């Protein structure tokens, strides 16, 4: 990383130094206030709320560890954890492998790169609500295009968002369709692999597949690790697609008031954030929601640490400059 050398006021010149400090403070002031108001305070408050019973109307009432102990007795909490773990495992692997595969193909194209890259990337810009409805329409079992095409081959379509077995794979399909951003990042990394490394491998008699395995993959592995961490975070936060698929699947599609669709079918799309939202903002059990938020915070904090350490390692390696 270049240009980390910043301007430093000449030592001993008190006035310039004070002015420099004032400038930094001025530039950072909105960010500092914003961070305290929208992250610092709510993080502390979440932990405090998590030890209380609070319904937004009556004053919070201290209940000790009750909210945390209740988690162990709450079957829906267990279900939500299982669902989110399912997505963390399946979505992370599927998304990284899929994005790597598509990027590897695009990297080998000689013509039409721009068009195909655009086609692969565009869906990731669509509103997640729209993307979910697109798949809901395309995959609908009665008369949907996917079912129709399967019908030509005499195959039956799964029930997708109406079947507890298939709802999560359906959401995974949506997430793969909108994984264009990761593809573009991996593609950039592949195109950055120095050409000489391929030529050296070719001289050693390595074919395209062995070159991909022995040259491309190891070189872009930091980016792949980023893709994995990024996908884990995405899976932990999975909310919109789950809510919209659940509501469209149940046929009630009512974003206000009703709670019956959340998690439809059979709580198979009840992810951790969806359950947190349900408890906090549908049942107004803010204390329990805050306890769940605390758990979610601890998990995402751990994931973030992994990412930050990787970044540090990455920039250290870059400065060492292994031929790149």
């Amino acid at each position, binding site marked *: 990383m270049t240009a980390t050398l910043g301007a430093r006021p000449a030592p001993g010149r008190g006035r310039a130094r004070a002015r420099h400090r004032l400038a930094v403070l001025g530039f950072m002031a909105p*960010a500092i206030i914003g961070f305290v108001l929208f992250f610092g305070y709510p993080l502390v408050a979440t932990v405090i709320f998590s030890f209380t019973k609070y319904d937004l109307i009556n004053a919070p009432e201290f209940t000790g560890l009750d909210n945390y102990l209740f988690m162990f007795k709450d079957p829906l909490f267990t279900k939500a954890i299982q669902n989110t773990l399912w997505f963390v495992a399946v979505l992370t692997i599927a998304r990284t492998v899929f994005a790597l595969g598509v990027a590897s193909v695009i990297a080998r194209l000689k013509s039409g790169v721009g068009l195909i890259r655009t086609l692969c990337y565009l869906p990731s810009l669509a509103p997640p609500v729209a993307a979910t409805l697109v798949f809901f*329409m395309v995959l609908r079992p009665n008369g949907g295009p996917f079912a129709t095409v399967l019908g030509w081959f005499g195959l039956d379509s799964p029930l997708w968002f109406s079947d507890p077995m298939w709802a999560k794979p359906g959401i995974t399909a949506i997430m793969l369709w909108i994984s264009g951003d990761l593809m573009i*990042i991996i593609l950039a990394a592949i195109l950055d692999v120095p050409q000489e490394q391929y030529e050296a491998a070719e001289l050693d008699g390595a074919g395209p597949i062995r070159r991909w395995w022995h040259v491309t993959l190891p070189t872009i592995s930091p980016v792949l690790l980023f893709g994995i961490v990024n996908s884990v975070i995405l899976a932990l936060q999975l909310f919109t697609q789950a809510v919209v698929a659940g509501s469209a699947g149940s046929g009630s599609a009512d974003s206000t008031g009703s709670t019956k669709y959340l998690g439809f079918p059979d709580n198979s799309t009840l992810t951790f954030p969806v359950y947190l939202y349900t408890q906090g903002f549908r049942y107004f059990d803010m204390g329990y929601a805050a306890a769940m938020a605390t758990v979610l915070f601890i998990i995402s904090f751990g994931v973030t640490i992994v990412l930050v350490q990787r970044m540090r390692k990455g920039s250290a390696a870059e400065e060492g400059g292994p031929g790149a």
Partner: protein
Amino acid sequence: MTATLAKPPLDVPAEPELPKKPRDVRGILNWVATHAIGLALGLMFATPVLFVFLTAVMSDDQAFTSNLWPTEWHWENFVEVFDKAPLFQYLFNSLTYSLLATAGMLLSSIPAAYALAKLRWRGRNVAFLLVIGAMMLPPQVVAVPLYDTWSSLGLTGTLLPLIAPYFLFDAFSIFLLRQFMLTIPQSYVDAARVDGCSEFQTLVRIIVPMAKPGIAATALFCFLFTWNDYFGPLLYTGEVKEQWTLSLALATFKGMHIVQWNSAMAVTFLTMIPAIILFIFAQKSFVKGITFTGVKG
């Protein structure tokens, strides 16, 4: 720039190489196979949108059938959906949210990114780590106390709780702008200082003009993110229909306002158009950005 972390996704002007002449039959077969797979992939990504479009122009009756191709083209479906739901109201709300948030983000994030990228001060690294931490935090973690506060201020049911934070702090934009500003050579900043520019003048006269492509890209991402946001509007305006954004309203169309598939898909298609238009715009602004700074760090 090492940071592979959330590199702006458009960061690849993958220069199409000149088509090499395949050397032999195997080379030709290889070429054909690769391009067939590439084309199939492109089609795979495009097909769902194609089906959405084809369904949107079908007649009410045909949209219920398993026909893939419309027998008659009902272009008026795109107009009629505006009678079935107050789309202009939702569009106005979406634009209010996205435009004000983007404007606020530019005011608050550009100075912060400059301080993080180009000024040297104690605590800078810690501050940058906090920005990354905030960027990674699921929005649900801080939702309870924030909702509590906005509700006690009587401001839930409006878009203000969504817009206001952007005027102070937006972690992703600060991060992205900082990465862009790191690519501006320090010599420009030093030269400005030698010429007697204050930090503020350096920011306004040197950094902002040079970082324009990066600022444009960040603004586009911010606009798209708020345009696509579902959790925020659901949390704060879910009960107040007049305040719904397009994204939030779209989630209820299939059940509430509109029963027919053709109308639901017409609205779905309409909400995706801004993304498509902005993409064309963003691609240009980004390529410009790279040629302008000419530094890849």
